[in-house]
């Protein structure tokens, strides 16, 4: 090969490689713009694995309760970091779930024991608790102090903005009970999700009309506000939201996002807790979904509750307000295993968005 041929070969390879680089592998993720949205992170006050964040009303004052093994509460109107108070009366076991109705708070506690053969802690039994005031003592519900560790127990409620629309339920195995203080009433169960009869595998519910509708999916909500009744209810299966105005006809809409674990309603957006971070999806003023999900409409959410985290729980405190004008809480947990993700341990826990701060930050 003479020098001229070598030169032609060299330039051919270079040009081909350059064209390939620029045309086949281009990607335009938003970077600098997101970095400019970042803020210095607060010290975490509610850390760890969180499964529920519920409303509770006492003497016309709205409170929020959250669990991470322990129980914390705050006045819902305290829109600032660090307002949570540890519930000094919390049960001694590991609080795994919370729910509330118009009168009572409920907790599911796990008692662990050491398995010396396997060298790990395992659940010994599960206990249901209730209490009737924010600072009151928790009482184990008679007959449900020692539920077998192998029995599935799911505690959930409507968590409606209006206290009178809050109902609480517990599924123990394939049986579903309505809760009223220390009284559990067994409900007739079926196999269908999205109706007012709970299925044997239901995990969430909403209050709509004058009934409770049960779902086999964790993400469900309505467009109820503190002053108006719901006109639509929603649940999400994967990334498809199903909405209904009458409880019998359901219409689907594809959010085109990661799997949705939780959903909250605001007057302009759905806030979605997904397996890939916090995302938002627009809806009409009537509440009909109109847009796919994205992660760049909600302040610095894309760089905090990012795709490195799964968001099990979201709650918008004032659904009548626009997304940027209401307190919103979200939880962060590892998406995948702790060793296989770029998620940071210190970020696992509760996060908040306050309009006065206009940024997401650790709570």
């Amino acid at each position, binding site marked *: 090969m003479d020098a001229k041929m070598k030169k032609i070969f060299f330039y051919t390879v*270079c040009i081909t490689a350059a064209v390939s680089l620029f045309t086949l*592998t*281009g990607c335009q*993720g*938003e970077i*600098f713009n997101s*970095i400019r949205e*970042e803020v*210095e992170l607060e010290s975490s006050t509610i850390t760890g694995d969180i499964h529920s964040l519920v409303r509770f009303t006492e003497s016309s004052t709205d409170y929020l309760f959250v669990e991470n093994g322990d129980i914390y509460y705050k006045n819902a109107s305290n829109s600032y970091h660090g307002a949570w108070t540890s519930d000094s009366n919390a049960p001694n076991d590991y609080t795994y779930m919370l729910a509330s109705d118009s009168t009572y708070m409920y907790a599911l506690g796990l008692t662990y024991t050491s398995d010396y053969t396997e060298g790990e802690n395992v659940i010994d039994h599960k206990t249901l608790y209730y209490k009737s005031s924010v600072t009151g003592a928790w009482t184990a519900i008679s007959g449900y102090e020692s539920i077998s560790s192998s029995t599935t127990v799911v505690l959930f409620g409507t968590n409606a903005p209006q206290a009178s629309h809050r109902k609480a339920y517990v599924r123990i195995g394939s049986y579903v009970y309505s809760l009223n203080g220390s009284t559990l009433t067994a409900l007739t169960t079926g196999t269908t999700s999205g109706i007012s009869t709970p299925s044997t595998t239901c995990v969430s519910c909403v209050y709509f009309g004058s009934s409770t509708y049960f779902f086999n999916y964790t993400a469900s909500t309505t467009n109820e506000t503190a002053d108006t009744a719901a006109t639509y209810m929603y649940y999400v299966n994967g990334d498809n939201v199903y909405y209904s105005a009458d409880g019998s006809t359901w219409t689907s809409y594809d959010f085109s996002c990661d799997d949705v674990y939780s959903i909250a309603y605001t007057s302009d957006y759905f806030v979605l807790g997904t397996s890939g971070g916090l995302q938002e999806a627009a809806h009409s003023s009537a509440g009909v979904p109109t847009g796919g999900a994205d992660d760049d409409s909600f302040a610095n959410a894309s760089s905090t509750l990012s795709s490195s985290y799964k968001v099990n729980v979201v709650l918008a405190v004032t659904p009548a307000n626009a997304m940027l004008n209401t307190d919103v809480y979200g939880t962060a947990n590892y998406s995948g295993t702790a060793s296989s993700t770029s998620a940071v341990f210190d970020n696992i826990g509760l996060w908040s968005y306050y309009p006065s701060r206009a940024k997401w930050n650790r709570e």
Partner: protein
Amino acid sequence: MKRCLPLLLILFLAGGAYTFAADSGSGDDVHQDAPVEYKTNDTGDQYIKIAIMGVQPQNFDQQLKTGGAAELGYHRFISSLFALGFDIQFGYNPTIGSNMFTFVPMTLTGTFQPYIGRFEFPFTFGVGAALESYLSRNYFPGLVLKGQAGAFFRATESWSFGIESEYMYMPQWYRDHPEYNDYGLFLTVGLVARYHF
């Protein structure tokens, strides 16, 4: 990124192949009778540089913190004062929100290098493409322009050591979202070792 590496390798190998191909047979061109002038560097001289440096973002307020980078480069003199080459840099900057911005600029460079005695003062301009990453997002190819200046001491015939500083411009342009258009300015200062051959 995985698709990029083979292509970069091809570029690298092709460059090397061309370089050595151009060298073959040059030993026949020695003229015993010509006057000999000794220069520190001359046409055909080459060097490889290895650098570690601090990276200070210039236009991000507190959002990006001081980071670091390492650089590898190959350069070849086409005259006693001017060299062409390329640099690959691997850099990072922590963000205020405990995330990480990383970047891999790949630049073709031209270097003008005057010298005084055993001190060499390279001034370099580079243009190229960068792979920029943040969280699970990538931006590629991102334009990179950089200007570099340094001071080196030629410790031996084969080695020189010194410091070098560069100013780097990395814009991000979005075809579908022009409102996201932005740019980063970065100042680096680092220690450099160069192997001459």
